[in-house]
């Protein structure tokens, strides 16, 4: 135990001394990259009714060799909490801390420029009595954007086409906490599960004359029921509810500023914020229903799921009891199939996951009912993982190969502009770990992502300055080739009681493979130090 403390102290010291540099947010939005999708799919915090457009990344940041082997089932593949009672076996508890930094000229206009962040997370699962199982996690993060982003909203590159930005580039600090947990109970052949999630963040300019604050809450919940038809077949349904409020306040304390509220591709004049503060509130409700099947055939575990989603976002500027609002409505459906096949007495494992999602969105403006702004988005993703564990010499290797095809159309009849973009992302990643004796092992990893984009977009040369400044860079990047690479090096120590202490240094970069007119030359680089412990 004393040894465990010493290792923990060393890991903590490593974290404190780490150069404040690494993995990135422009390269990604970090919390979503900490764990593989199958480990978070059960969480009701997963985005619903919107597709977030991220820059190409080189995959998850947590070393794959310390993660449990992929699992398939109603819980892991379909996100149905009713599957908890059957899908969870041995308990697991892990904690991790990350210190990272990211910078570089390459970014979209509403991405942060310089980013440094500290994150701590804990998660685990275990049995609750004889019939129940529980899973849950907590994540805390503080992120400093310096120089800051001009975006006032937390997700400027998502499906809704209402975005607020301003002229400030002051440093901004964001504090975020995410909590999620689920409980599932088996009652004979029936399973019942409930999951709750809560995501809240507060973003604030730091020592700025033109002050921006954003606070957001996202309470979510899902309820599922499942039934075992036979030993090899289960069926389940679950519904997930999302609500949320995001409140933006701008005020001029030491300096005036300009705010831009844009809808679709419309060019908007900036409004000066001086003596009157600026206020926007975005409220959302989303409901998703899914039906799923899970079973096993010839040593292959499989899950199939399909569902529909409906979401409404309301944008208002009025401080009143019943404010008028602009509306963004999205509806769509999704489907997915997951397969898991063990080989060689479970020392070799192949997991394949395929997903399809389609989403249509449209705007309704508060002052008229013209549905002149619509989006159509489709995404197909195929992820595979091959995990191998040596029987004798302590090698562990995990290889991943992913393909994502995304298609997005925006038709803004009001602005008389439309765009269509298609992106193809291919990713390969390999993590290797080798035992060195006395519980120690070393690990290394590499990942490469290649993105190819095509599409039809309004020619920026014939558009106004606002379009060139705000929309063109993103569309340029989305329709151009780019690549991301990542390398990592780490060490692990396994204590006799089964605890695993690990540390990793990681660097990642993103670069364009051709020069673009509206995107600054250069790359984006990030680095991070991660430490963690996995408890049995």
């Amino acid at each position, binding site marked *: 135990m004393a040894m465990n403390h010493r290792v923990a102290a060393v890991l903590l010291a490593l974290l404190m001394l780490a150069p404040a540099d690494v993995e990135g947010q422009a390269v990604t939005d970090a919390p979503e990259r900490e764990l593989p999708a199958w480990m978070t799919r059960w969480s009701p915090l997963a985005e619903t009714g919107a597709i977030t457009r991220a820059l190409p990344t080189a995959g998850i940041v947590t070393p794959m060799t310390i993660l449990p082997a992929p699992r398939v089932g109603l819980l892991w593949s379909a996100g149905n909490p009713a599957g908890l009672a059957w899908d969870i076996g041995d308990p697991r*508890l892990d904690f991790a801390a990350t210190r990272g930094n990211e910078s570089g000229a390459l970014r979209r206009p509403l991405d942060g420029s310089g980013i440094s962040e500290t994150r701590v997370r*804990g998660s685990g699962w*275990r049995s*609750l*009595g004889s019939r129940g199982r*529980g899973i*849950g996690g*907590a994540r*805390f993060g503080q992120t400093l954007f310096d120089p800051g982003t001009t975006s006032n909203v937390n997700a400027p590159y998502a499906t809704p086409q209402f975005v607020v930005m301003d002229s400030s580039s002051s440093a901004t600090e964001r*504090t975020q*906490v995410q*909590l999620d*947990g689920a409980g599932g109970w088996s009652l004979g052949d029936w399973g019942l599960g409930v999951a709750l999630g*809560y995501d*809240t963040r*507060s973003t*604030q*300019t730091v*020592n700025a*004359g033109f*002050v921006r*604050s954003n*606070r*957001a*809450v996202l*309470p979510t919940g899902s309820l599922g029921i499942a039934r075992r038809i036979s030993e090899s077949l289960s069926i389940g349904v679950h519904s997930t509810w999302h*609500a949320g*409020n995001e*409140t933006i306040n701008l*005020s*001029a*304390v*030491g*300096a005036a500023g300009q705010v831009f509220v844009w809808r679709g591709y419309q060019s908007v004049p900036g409004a000066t914020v001086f003596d009157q503060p600026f206020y926007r*509130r975005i409220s959302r409700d989303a409901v998703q229903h899914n039906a799923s099947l899970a079973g096993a055939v010839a040593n292959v575990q499989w899950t199939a799921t399909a569902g529909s989603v409906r979401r409404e976002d309301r944008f208002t500027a009025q*401080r*009143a*009891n019943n404010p008028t609002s602009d509306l963004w409505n999205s509806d769509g459906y999704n489907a997915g199939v997951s397969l898991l096949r063990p080989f060689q007495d479970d020392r070799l494992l192949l997991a394949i996951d395929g997903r399809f999602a389609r989403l249509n969105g449209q705007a309704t403006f508060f002052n008229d009912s013209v549905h002149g702004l619509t989006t159509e988005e489709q995404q197909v993703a195929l992820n595979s993982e091959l995990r191998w564990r040596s029987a004798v010499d302590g090698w562990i290797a995990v290889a991943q190969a992913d393909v994502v095809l995304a298609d997005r159309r925006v038709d803004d009849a009001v602005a008389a502009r439309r765009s269509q973009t298609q992106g193809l992302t291919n990713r390969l990643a390999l993590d290797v770990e080798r035992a060195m004796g006395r519980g120690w092992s070393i690990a290394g990893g590499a990942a490469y992502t290649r993105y190819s984009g095509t599409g039809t977009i309004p020619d920026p040369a014939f558009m106004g300055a606002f379009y060139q400044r705000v929309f063109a860079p993103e569309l340029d990047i989305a329709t151009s080739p780019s690549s991301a690479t990542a390398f990592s090096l780490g060490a692990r120590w396994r204590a006799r009681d089964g605890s695993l202490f690990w540390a990793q240094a990681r660097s990642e970069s993103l670069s364009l493979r051709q020069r673009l007119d509206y995107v600054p030359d250069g790359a984006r680089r990030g680095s991070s130090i991660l430490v963690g412990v996995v*408890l049995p």
Partner: protein
Amino acid sequence: MGVPAGPQVLRVQRLGFAPRRIDLVVPATGTLSQDVGMAASALQVAGIRVVADPAGRARGEAGTASVIEREAIRSQVAASLAGVLELIPGVVLQPPGLDGIQQLSLRASPISGGSAILTDADAGNLSAFGTLLVVDGVPLSNNANLQSLGSRSEVNFGGTAGVGIDLRRIPATTIERVEVLRGVPSARWGDLTHGAVIVDTRAGVVEPELLARVDARTTEVSFVAGRDVRTAHAVTITSNFARTETGGGVRGDQSSRLSGQLAHRWSSDAAAGPDARIILDTRVDGFRLTDDRPETPTLPGSERFARDAAFRVLERAQFRLGNVNRLSLTAAYERGSQGYESRRNLVRGVQALTTRTEPGREIGRFEGGIYNATVRVDGQPSFMYSRAELSSAPNWFGLAHDARVGLELRRENNSGAGTQFDLLFPPQVAVVGARGFDRPRSFDTLPSYALSSAYIDDRVSFSLPGGSRASVQAGLRVDALHEPGRWAAAPRSTVWQPRLNAELAVTPWLSLRSGFGRLAKAPSMGSLNPIPDYYDVVNVNYFANAPTERLAALTTYILDPTNTSLRHTVQDRAELGAELRAGGAQVSLVLYTDRLTNGLGVQPEPAFVLRDNYQLSNVNPGSGTPPVLVEPPVSQDSIPVIISRAANNIQTSGSGIELTADLPEIAPLRTRLALQAAFARSSLEQDRLEFTSRFADFQLLPAISRIPYFESFRRTGELGLITGRLIHHQPEIGLIVTGTVQYTAHEKQQNVGDTDSLAFAGYLTRGGTVVPVPRGERGDPQYADLQVSRGTLTSARRGQPDWLLSLQVAKTLPLNGRFSFYAFNAFDRLGRFGTGEVLQRQFAGTRFGVELSMPLGGLAAWR
């Protein structure tokens, strides 16, 4: 153990384990066995209580109380005592942090606004002022707080002078237990009108623990450790630092607190616990609380700072005299240091000013334009407290008694530089106003304030035929406020306060209670020594173009608003209650009513000052010399003024219902519901004259010969709050999730009084004479000039029902650590915007944060 029959609480403590609290019903005869399971963390123990005990009793008290134990305090994730007190009925939830002054208004509802030109008393402030705060057996006092500029000042800062103690000074992390006496306290407690909050800080052997909390605005770090030193001594250290960014990100404002305490106990026989022959408790504690509002680039010249600090030392000696008697001697001294400074840009037209601080006439000077008014108030309040108490638990006439007799002496003082500002650049532009203006005032000359009290109290329990049990606590207390400074001096105000609480345990599961009594609170030092009213009457105002030719002459009058007959505020209260314990549920229902008289207010007293008018000679424009004032004055006129005299002229009444229910756990869901509902109705009347906002014109314009006055109206408020806590507990994984929903079911405020143009009660002449007009004559044409709208009364305003949810999650960590998350207003509900007759009630935005506590006892052997 000889434990009385009936409902009892078994408390079990052991170092390294979470304390347990088990409700028991002790049989009248025989032996009761109870197995007690213990765990390192309370989160891993079934039955953990994270809310106030609905049927709890404060130690030595029979009246209605809320008892909040350590685990409930810890689960509350509060920055200060105020956050802990959200566990009692009727308290509005607030975001955790050091934002703004924090007070407790027991059993008071917000009431409607009032007068156009006079400062209004408020039922909430009266309640906060009348709520006694006792820490480690010794009251804290805010009576000598003089950090106020009064209502005349146009440069202001926040402060708690005349109201309750700022609860931010007490960190929640260092509190072991809180008892809130909501009902009729025993005679042991005095200098209160609305109840008492009894706080025990952490002391004794405590495993070292480090706690850190962070949210987007607040950072807090606490450390607590206590251990035995040899056998007879125990030493405990608690410390806390907290800082909150209070400017909402818009300004750089912040509040911070630094506090620490050293506790020592010596016992002649440590193994005997509280039954040792001699126990000496020593506490040394201090705090520093700051509120900073630095200037901003857009508003240069405006800033304010407040520094409150105090150091307190107390000694409590307990002597066991035989088997049933105990003598307790307590002495404490607290010395504070308060420094508030505020500055602001003011604009004035050119006006004649004088720097005179004594009555009389003086040649003045002209000043005008924009200036930066700076005012500073430095005070050093001190509080000396001593108590001797003899307690005895004899068996007289076959009945078990618990009797106390005690004597208390208090002495309060304030010294220091007091209010300071430049007389030529005062914090008040309107120097010719209805209510005069201020001068700098040193606190060094103010007399001390001495109070003495004596009390006797007995509690007797007995069985009744049929198996029921009864308990009666009766006592009498007398509080005396002495002439300045000396306990030996004759009291200027004395209040006898009988108090009675009775309880009838009809069955083991049903108890009925009742209580009534009189409570009293001494006036504050600020009311006993009000700021004098200065009037600078302009006799000559010759403003020539050339500065050297100008002449101003002013006569200074000083009117003393001191009220030498000011006396105690008194409240009579009564309550009825019932408690039910059945099936694991505890329900408590209390109906109460109270009436406060002699409340501290301000009586506007009409008066006048004389103005001499002079002729000038040698008026030669261009001469470069001012004219000469020709004595004697050619005429004289009167200027009506109002003396703001401190007075016992407030009456309030309150009534309400409090329901507290702690329902049994729904086992399959491992969830329980704790419910609190409070309906409070308050009304306030102030016996005073009131005027319209035209009074300033009346003062300045001799053509206006009279002005109507009105009788005070009644200001009322009602508030119905329901607070439900849904508590989900998973002991196996050390997880507890609490969702707190506060539903404002009812809110109403209304001024009750005449509103029409015949509402005036009479008129005031320029000579300061109050002339009543009979109601039947007010419509006569001769009073047409008095038939004006009062202007301040509106119809009833009601609040819309609304709710907010707060969330708390606590989870054990490896090494007995603990992680907590909290989100105030977790759904970020906005509340309601006010419109017309709808009261505005806007909720503070979501505030969330995390807390991490880690015991450090494993680092070294700790005992």
